[in-house]
């Protein structure tokens, strides 16, 4: 008899709380990549998504949310996007109905884990791993960047002004990224936050 495979969380630790900041795994999400076919595929895809979801796919590294807040589309390279919805939302089948003939749809749900960093000093903490400018004038709410956190490729997404950052990371590297952030947060705590030296 075949083994039954059950989903295992990519990071075995719970959440990490240091100096008012929290680093934790986000609930599993349904993720689908959209790659527009060449020729008229891009315009057709933008129109179809606009008709079906009521949002314009972003031209720049940004995220847009549908009106009901259940689904977000992230820029993920020229003519490429990532659609994200909560697990079990049936996102892939919906997208197949809407735009299967004008773009390549690939489920990425099992490919990436989502780690969340939140709390008042998140910007300073994230800046220690990520080489891009996170100052509010350069990187704000719903800005998205594909970059490196340490040596780990991530898609970084700021979801509010606290700030809260989501890191979409390859599932097999999620534990390493979690470890890197635990070092960053603990270092942060002992060097700058703790007053009892």
């Amino acid at each position, binding site marked *: 008899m075949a083994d039954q495979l059950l989903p295992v969380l990519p990071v075995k630790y719970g959440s990490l709380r240091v100096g008012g900041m929290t680093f934790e795994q986000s609930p599993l999400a349904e993720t689908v990549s959209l790659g527009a076919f060449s020729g008229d595929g891009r315009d057709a895809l933008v129109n179809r998504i606009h008709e079906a979801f009521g949002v314009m796919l972003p031209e720049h*590294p940004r995220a847009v949310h549908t009106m009901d807040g259940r689904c977000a589309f992230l820029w*993920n*390279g*020229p003519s490429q996007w990532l659609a994200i919805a909560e697990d079990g939302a049936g996102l892939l089948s919906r997208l197949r109905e809407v735009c299967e003939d004008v773009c390549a749809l690939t489920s990425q749900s099992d490919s990436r884990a989502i780690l969340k960093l939140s709390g008042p000093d998140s910007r300073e903490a994230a800046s220690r791993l990520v*080489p891009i*400018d996170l100052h509010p004038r350069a990187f704000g709410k719903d800005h998205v*960047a594909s970059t*490196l956190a340490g040596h780990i490729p991530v898609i970084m997404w700021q979801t509010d002004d606290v700030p809260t950052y989501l890191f979409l990371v390859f599932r097999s590297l999620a534990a390493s990224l979690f470890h890197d952030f635990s070092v960053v947060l603990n270092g942060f705590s002992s060097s700058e936050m703790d007053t009892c030296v």
Partner: protein
Amino acid sequence: MRLTCPFCGSRGLEEFTYRGDASVRRPAADASEQAWVDYVYLRDNPCGRHQELWYHGAGCRSWLVVTRDTRTHEIFDVRNARDVAVAERQTEAGKGENS
């Protein structure tokens, strides 16, 4: 050295991979053996401005054509390689119509 990706903005070198001279062009299938040897093996080693291909692997995965000074690392221009190729094809098509 930093490169300004036309899609992602200014990024550090660690996100990119260098992939050689961007000015070489594939010869016609019936071109001379010498033309193919040139295309496959021979590269200039210019002192000064150089057009080169870079791959933004840790970012948007775009191929870029970068004009760089090989002595100072000054960057003059960064363009999407796809746009460069499309513009070139259109120019060639335009020439074909005129002749």
